[in-house]
């Protein structure tokens, strides 16, 4: 019984991290209708930047994070401006292929630059236990991940739903031509959306990198998690990613505790398939009209 409670509790906290991994992907999909295959690799790249900056330049991990957010925003904006914006008018397939190519380039560039070995960003909080009571315990890192994820998702939701900039972004995602007719520079909205995505992804990268070991090739694994989160929560729904993340996290850990660790991934994705059959648009997604 204790192991079930432990699995649910850790699963919810892990789900927060999953949601933060997925939220950038959901933003890009919701706004540009693009599936960013390079999402996981960009996140791992940001984790490497933060790791290198803390190890070599700064003592403070927060300072390293801020600098790597800036670097990632520059990379994201360049990718958006010179790669994605130049093909986006031709439909979503060319853009999908561009991100696929980017993923391969990033993975190999990271192996060349950082080597194939495993890395971990060690922080003061990684070792802390919030409590330990009999068989139950809660890790400080997991709790931090969850809190940060919820804060970021709430901020993004308010930004998109309540501000003038958010209305511009939503109008662009709703109808590009009409948005242009309102005087909105839609390509600039895409660049802003990319910058927001990169910020969220970079924070996710730090948390992932200080929770689990990572390799230059880890991106794919997290891409699959992001897919799961976004599909369960509803493509393009930001609050949906939180629900999607928690469902995926809890089912994975319940699966592991009931059937054994090898079944962790399997149970998560079986639940994904069941939800997809019952509600193809995702829990908070909008059904397609017409």
């Amino acid at each position, binding site marked *: 019984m204790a192991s079930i409670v432990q699995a649910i509790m850790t699963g919810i906290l892990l789900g927060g991290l999953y949601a933060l991994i997925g939220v950038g992907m959901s933003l890009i999909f919701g706004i540009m209708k693009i599936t960013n295959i390079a999402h996981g690799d960009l996140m791992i790249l940001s984790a490497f930047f933060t790791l290198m900056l803390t190890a070599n330049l700064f003592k403070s991990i927060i300072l390293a994070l801020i600098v790597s957010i800036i670097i990632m925003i520059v990379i994201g904006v360049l990718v958006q401006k010179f790669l994605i914006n130049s093909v986006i008018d031709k439909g979503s397939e060319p853009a999908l292929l561009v991100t696929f190519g980017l993923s391969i380039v990033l993975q190999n560039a990271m192996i060349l630059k950082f080597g194939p070995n495993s890395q971990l960003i060690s922080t003061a909080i990684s070792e802390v236990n919030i409590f330990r009571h009999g068989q139950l315990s809660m890790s400080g890192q997991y709790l931090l991940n969850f809190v940060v994820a919820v804060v970021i998702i709430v901020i993004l939701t308010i930004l998109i739903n309540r501000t*003038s900039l958010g*209305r*511009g972004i*939503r*109008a662009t995602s*709703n*109808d590009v*031509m*009409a*948005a*242009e*007719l*309102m*005087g*909105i*520079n*839609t390509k600039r909205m895409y660049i802003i959306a990319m910058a927001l995505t990169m910020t969220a992804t970079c924070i996710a990268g730090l948390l992932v990198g200080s929770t689990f070991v990572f390799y230059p090739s880890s991106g794919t694994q997290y891409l699959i998690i992001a897919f799961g989160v976004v599909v369960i929560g509803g493509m393009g729904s930001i609050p949906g990613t939180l629900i999607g993340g928690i469902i995926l996290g809890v089912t994975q850990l319940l699966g592991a505790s009931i059937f054994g660790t090898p079944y962790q991934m399997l149970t998560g994705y079986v639940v994904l398939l069941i939800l997809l059959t019952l509600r193809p648009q995702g829990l908070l997604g*909008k059904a397609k*009209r017409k």
Partner: protein
Amino acid sequence: MSEIILEVSNLDVFYGDLQAIHDVSLKIEKGSMVSLIGANGAGKSTLLTTIMGVNKPKNGKIFWKGQDITGLSTNKIVSRGLTLTPEGSHIFEDMTVRENLQVGSWTNKSREAKADAEEKVYDIFPVLKEKRTQLASFLSGGQRQMLAIGRAIMASPEMIICDEISLGLAPVVIKDIYASLRKICESGVTFLLVEQEVKRCLKYTDYGYVMVKGGIVMEGKCSELPEDKVSDAYFGIGEFA
């Protein structure tokens, strides 16, 4: 003769090898209500999207208040005060009525101007005020066109081009919308109305252009244009065959 607000001179537009617009010229006076009449496929929408910077012309120029705007991007043209309500309204369905209007005032930076414009819209279309917190996708066809026009007004434009606003609407609703357009026109906004229906255009607008097969075949004051001749041109019969 008052000031010319929009001038199109000798425009040629191609889709690949196919020429959709042949040597079209228009002059629109400030404060007037002008109609562009033509059947399906006459090239009306191509002309409009070219004016708004969506298509690029092969030859010819477009002047807005004397300045060359040929080849500018749509959002830049809109921020200069020329806007379009597209065919089929294209309202933002996932947003509320009020949010649609707020997006409409994107180029309008002052808070007061925004609030004034919103009041003006509610004044002209009271039904939008009633429904302002509802999602735009719940609006009826007529209300959608009202929202599209209202959204255009939010930018305080000097000229609005309306692409087939009466399409699929009941005659009473059309009459209401035309009356509102006249009201807006009297407040100083120039209109170019693109329509398929000859009679209505001649009745409600000041000046008319008739477009057939990508070219302008007839123009004149609506009170002086003979309806039967316009109809002949429209259907491509008689001397226009």
